[in-house]
């Protein structure tokens, strides 16, 4: 897969959109491939309902993540966005409904089995191993990756986050929030993932760091399908291709991001955002 990423990157640098000629098209598509037919959906949730203890958090979420696109989950605090990602990863398993990934039903699988299918997860709290160095964090994430490929992935991550070179041997727990976010995202790129679930990458970060993370996601979406949970509407609307609006455990609206940007009533009603 990584050869294809590199080839794809070269194609894009040469002005080619990277869709032709590589065998990795199924996994990594450029942004322009967003308008792919429905059949190319990578992840499908149908009427997913999840309980945490006695609380009925997800009350019927249905969504489709299209291959090669960035799909953004939007909604107020407590709407069920984070739980949706956790349910996909099997961390809070769905009680009702089905989750299909690449045509296979994964609702009944355990977290590690789901991850092995090629789904990376960047949790809201970043899930960094604080007692390990940054390079140990990345090495741990490089499951079933041979040495040469590991080096190429590291280079790719350092290309995406050049700042990371400075603190590769530092303990991850000693890093700032923005640096930890870089490590958390890079960790999702260290193995053969086709889909990356990213939960609120801008949370608690200074505006300048949010910009850096946003730029990285802009670059990253050329190579991997992303399902993003984001409260920062600027980031969501810049990076996202498609949106799902979640409220009280249901999805209440969805469509291309451009449609949401132009629908002032919808953004005001559900997000409290006044779009100029």
């Amino acid at each position: 897969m990584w050869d294809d990423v590199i080839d794809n990157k070269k194609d894009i640098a040469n002005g080619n959109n990277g869709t032709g000629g590589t065998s990795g098209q199924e996994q990594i598509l450029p942004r322009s491939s967003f308008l792919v037919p429905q059949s190319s959906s990578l992840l499908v949730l149908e009427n997913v309902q999840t309980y945490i203890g006695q609380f009925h958090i997800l009350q019927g979420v249905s969504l489709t993540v299209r291959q090669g696109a960035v799909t953004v989950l939007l909604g107020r605090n407590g709407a069920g966005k984070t739980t949706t990602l956790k349910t996909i990863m099997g961390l809070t398993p769905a009680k009702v409904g089905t989750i299909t990934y690449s045509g296979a039903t994964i609702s009944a699988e355990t977290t590690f089995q789901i991850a092995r299918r090629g789904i990376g997860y960047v949790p809201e709290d970043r899930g960094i191993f604080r007692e390990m160095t940054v390079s140990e964090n990345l090495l741990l994430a490089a499951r079933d990756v041979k040495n040469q490929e590991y080096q190429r992935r590291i280079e790719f991550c350092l290309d995406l986050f050049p700042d990371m070179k400075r603190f590769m041997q530092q303990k991850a727990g000693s890093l700032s929030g923005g640096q930890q976010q870089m490590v958390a995202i890079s960790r999702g790129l260290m193995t053969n993932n086709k889909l990356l679930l990213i939960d609120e990458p801008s949370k608690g970060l200074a505006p300048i760091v949010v910009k850096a993370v946003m730029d990285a996601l802009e670059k990253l979406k050329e190579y991997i399908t992303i399902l993003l949970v984001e409260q920062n509407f600027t980031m969501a609307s810049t990076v996202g291709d498609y949106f799902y609006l979640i409220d009280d455990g249901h999805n209440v609206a969805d469509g291309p991001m451009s449609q949401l940007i132009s629908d002032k009533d919808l953004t005001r009603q559900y997000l409290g955002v006044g779009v100029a």
Partner: protein
Amino acid sequence: MKVAQTQSPLFILRDRRVLTLLALLVGLVLILIYINTAIKFPVFVKFFINGLVESSVLFLMASGLSLIFGLMDVVNFAHGAVFTWGGFAFMWSFNLFSTPFAQAKDQTSPIAWLQLGLDPLSATALALLFGLAAGGVLGIAIELLAIRRLYGRPVFQILLTLGLVLILDESLKIVFNLSAPTYSFANQPWPSGGFRPSPDILVNWKSVVIIVAGLLIFLAVFWLLNRTKVGLVIRGGVEDTQMVQALGYNVKNYFFGVFVLGSVLAALGGIAFTINSTGGSEGMGQLSLLTAFVVVVIGGLGSFSGAAIGALLVGLITPYIGYHFPALADSYVMLLLVLVLLVRPQGLFGGKKI
């Protein structure tokens, strides 16, 4: 106006390395004064070697406990029973392998053919494998049948493993057909004899072997935890189990491996104990377990190196305390624990560091 900045000559004391060196020098001077005034040099050396052997046995016990209790937060009181089983399995199988068939008491027994009459080295090597296998099998059984359902539930772990202690101690008597609470070797296991570095000092080869075994195990487990991918998964799993699962690792399997490794190390501790004491008793595991718990807490929960330092500290001090203050021989370990926790509540190397 320019003010000349002068630095006190004592600033050098701020350097931790200088302070450590000074502490070592002061310690050395105190030991020399102690040797010259309170104890004869050959006795001091004898106690020092005995202390190293004690440390090594204690470390083997505490290293397994450090992995199971310190890293995985599993309170396993059955660890002491595994120590006893390892030691008894070793002694029993050694007696079996080293006794010639012609001298067998019961030649009709179905295992009488195992009385091979092997030389001490071969019998010890085979019995070592048998003792370690006993620890491994017990570790597998305890994890699969009991602990697996109780991760994160310490009260249930305590109750269940205390019950297991009773079962394992009683079954020990049945399996090894014990008529007395103690058991010993029928023949002298390897290594026997010793050497004299000076006319007044005799060092047993078995002491050397036990000290080297402890050191090798420390290096091997330290390497496993800090220099391998498996170690990374274990350390990651201890810190954030869910995240390691989300990276595609089946943490249950890794924890199972750690539990079995810890049990094998406990069995090795039991074997070293029986070789050093030329025998063992039913209660040897539970007595050592208490000290091992103290060692792990003194070293700092989750710190494998801390367990090694704790074992060294307790093991080295024990013979001297026993010599000068016999009344404190059993209780001083608790006093040491209180002292360390008063100064460093997280233990000497605490804080989930390895």
